[in-house]
């Protein structure tokens, strides 16, 4: 009896000590390999971190979201929320986004800004993908745009870059880690179903990130910033979403 108890105590103490030493070491290692999301705090952060880390570890970084046939394009394309209600955006819209420019700066070799015509002049990608809202509804649409990776290559991303941050004309800013930023299906989309991107869907240009839920596909883009830390942007959680109770990573 006493022998078993002793052994048990040894095992428990051993695990306890290994755990106490292992957790900070594992956290440092995970952080180094980009396995900790920007919003890992609190009890719910444990689940978020497990999901993000396991997907980044186990799933291929270049796997393509499912693409569909033209015949599968939906007939209804619901949207959540109205276009930005501010003077700057409304003036751009009134002028057909002729003077709109997408500023791209931060940790890049050559900060630049691009007009809508510039973006349309870049090699385009068209993809028919599924977009699901976290609420439960979904639709399939065809999107046309410039791959974000093409624009990132133009401006020359510096090696210390860890995130790309997207600022729209409204408050719904967000960010992507580098695997999703460089992903071939991540588009700066200006076309939808063969037409100009309709205003409710984010005109003139929106992000499309088909490996994540709809709310990551930021609409009404105004500027893009490449950063090595999200600490000083908003509440430092990488997106407006965690500030209003939703997770930064939406690949689920």
């Amino acid at each position: 009896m006493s022998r078993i108890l002793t052994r048990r105590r040894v095992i428990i103490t051993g695990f306890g000590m290994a755990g106490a030493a292992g957790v900070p070491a594992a956290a440092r290692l995970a952080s180094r390999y980009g396995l900790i999301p920007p919003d890992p705090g609190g009890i719910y952060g444990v689940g978020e971190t497990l999901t993000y880390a396991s997907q980044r570890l186990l799933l291929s970084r270049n796997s393509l979201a499912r693409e569909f046939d033209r015949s599968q394009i939906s007939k209804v394309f619901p949207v959540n929320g109205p276009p930005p209600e501010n003077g700057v955006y409304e003036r751009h819209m009134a002028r057909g986004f002729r003077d709109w420019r997408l500023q791209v700066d931060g940790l890049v070799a050559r900060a630049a800004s691009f007009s809508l015509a510039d973006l349309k002049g870049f090699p385009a990608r068209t993809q028919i993908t599924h977009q699901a809202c976290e609420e439960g509804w979904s639709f399939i649409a065809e999107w046309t745009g410039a791959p974000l990776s093409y624009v990132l290559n133009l401006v020359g991303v510096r090696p210390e870059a860890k995130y790309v941050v997207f600022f729209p004309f409204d408050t719904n800013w967000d960010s992507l880690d580098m695997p999703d930023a460089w992903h071939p299906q991540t588009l700066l989309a200006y076309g939808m179903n063969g037409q100009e991107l309709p205003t409710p869907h984010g005109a003139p240009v929106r992000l499309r990130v088909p490996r994540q839920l709809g709310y990551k596909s930021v609409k009404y883009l105004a500027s893009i910033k490449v950063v090595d830390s999200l600490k000083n942007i908003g509440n430092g959680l990488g997106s407006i979403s965690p500030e209003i109770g939703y997770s930064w990573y939406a690949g689920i």
Partner: protein
Amino acid sequence: MADSAQAAGVPAEAKAVGSPRHSALIRVTHWITALGFLALLVSGIAILLAHPRLYWGETGGVGTPSLLDLPLPFVLTGQSGWGRYLHFLSAWVCVWTGLIYVLCGLITGHFRRNFLPARSDLSRHYNLFQGLTYLVVVFVLFPLMIWTGLAMSPAITSVFPQAVTIFGGQQSARTIHFVITNLLVLFLAIHLIKIVASDFTNRMRAMIMGKERA
């Protein structure tokens, strides 16, 4: 457990009658799963309330034909936020607990001994229907729950598209996820009724402390 029972002076025959005895592993995994399932259910309802309508196929939304309109209000005031956080946290808890339970159950022969129908129906603790029900819950319903859950993830299906196409689409997976939830709740209801109806105190003692009153 058998050794410790005899060491504690319990006659061997006492084990064969009355409430089943449960190993520490089964008791711990049972209660963690019970808590996790409750959290999944509550948070799942919070998520469902954002869009209490079910579809078949790949897509669906307001303005498209639905399979089932639940008589529930659309609650769009952010209840799905904490719902989603709690849902995925408790899913992790349940998946790990379930894996440990199933692996240990296979190694120790728990499923074979206690749930598989015995040749001469001499299974001590459960009748044929009960045993099969537990097996279906553990090996069919819970795995399907995990599968249909993962089939709604655009990141997962980018790697394993068949995970969702086999169900006919993302909305079908969501609908099946909901249907299995109902089956699991039905199982839970019968499970609870049977415990209350048989011998509540002893059944609870058995699942908490591992032994029934002598």
